[in-house]
């Protein structure tokens, strides 16, 4: 005898009541301005600070500003709502990219073939990697692998 049926019986009524509030609270962090920065020195905190400043003055879509003093440019990718923002980022070779986890959940940044892997990033934690070769680097979250992102490294 074959039978197939699905019952999604999870406290449906209760959950529905809660959905609105959850969606509303999450929407508050869904803005995804591209993070653009050129830092005169390789300091993560400084880069994040500069990113905030950059947002205030208006960010430019995914491109890294040329550095005036030939220092290593840094860029921040936000991890929020189980996504990488921006999902695709173009940087110049030699750039350092910093991922910052803004979720209430742990994430792990991993190059798709394991060329680099971050520690477990809890809320507020950051991870940086310097891209020293021209090319395209695909990465994902090692524990939420549906989360994917790409770094395009240009000369």
């Amino acid at each position: 005898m074959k039978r197939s049926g699905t019952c999604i019986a999870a406290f449906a009524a209760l959950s529905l009541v809660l959905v609105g509030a959850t969606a509303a609270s999450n929407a508050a962090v869904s803005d995804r301005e591209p993070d653009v920065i050129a830092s005169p020195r390789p300091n993560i905190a400084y880069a994040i600070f500069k990113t905030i400043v950059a947002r205030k003055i208006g960010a430019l879509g995914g491109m890294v500003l040329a550095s005036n003093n030939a220092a290593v440019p840094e860029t921040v990718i936000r991890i929020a709502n189980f996504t990488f923002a921006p999902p695709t980022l173009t940087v110049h070779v030699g750039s350092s990219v910093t991922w910052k986890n803004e979720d209430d959940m742990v994430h792990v940044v991993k190059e798709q073939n394991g060329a680099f892997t971050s520690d477990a990033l809890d809320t507020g934690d950051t991870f940086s990697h310097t891209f020293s070769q021209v090319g395209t680097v695909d990465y994902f979250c090692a524990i939420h692998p549906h989360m994917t992102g790409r770094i395009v490294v240009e000369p």
Partner: protein
Amino acid sequence: MDNIGKIDRRGALECMIWAGTGVLWGLSGGVPKSLGLLGEAMAAESGFTFLQISDSHIGFNKPANPDALGTLRQAVAKVKALARKPDFMIHTGDITHLSKPTEFDTAGALIGETGVPVHYVPGEHDFLDGNQGKAYLDRYGSGTKGAGWYSFDDHGVHFIGLVNVLDLRAGGLGRLGQEQIAWLADDLSSKSSSTPIVVFAHIPLWTVYADWGWGTDDSAAALSLLKRFGSVTVLNGHIHQIVQKVEGNITFHTARSTAFPQPVPGTAPSPGPMTVPAEQLRSMLGITSIEVRMGDKPLAVIDSTLAS
């Protein structure tokens, strides 16, 4: 549900959702059958029982539940208060939040207060030590294969603990891997098709919601090996809510977390921890109890919820 009619041991499912604390399941002739609220059902049946606990996330301290240890303590108290102890527990992963030794030790000591043996499988949060899950495997890997999978028999039921949280692939879901699937085929080869099977693993072994990664890429290969069996029950965690499905001979069930709820698929921008009013939190956490009853009594297939 409408799955009534000619009932046999295949696919018969009765479940009752007990908001707040747990669901008691029975396996009649190897088929899972809810027996109602934990206490009364335990008293009503004399069979072999086991209990599922999941996603305790010890170390989690975010707004969705600043005291994940406290809610696990409540779950443990529920178990300790049972008139009759289950034969054993299964923990379907995410024991810890960050795989820290102190988190493992705290969880292990607290769960140990139940005095009930526990069979663990890891969640992805238990493999975060940067060392291929050594922190987990040092504690719970003894006697297991590969990344921690194993099987055992109890009261004529064959139990299989699988690991689908290791070496995940970009863009994918949970993953069992070829080595584990080959092991499963070998493990099942000596079992008669009338043997009741219970499979447990962290991430759901069917696709609940691919957009949030709630499924296992190569689960079809594993489930195909289970098709010849008359009764298969699949117990998972990971999604912190109860979702059930009956497909042919296989019944699927996910358990609540003891730590924090997650949204119903597609109802929020992300599957992240869901913050609810404090007075509602405990109604969205829980444990699951399962009773195995031998025999071939006809079963009615009824799904119902009990709003508390």
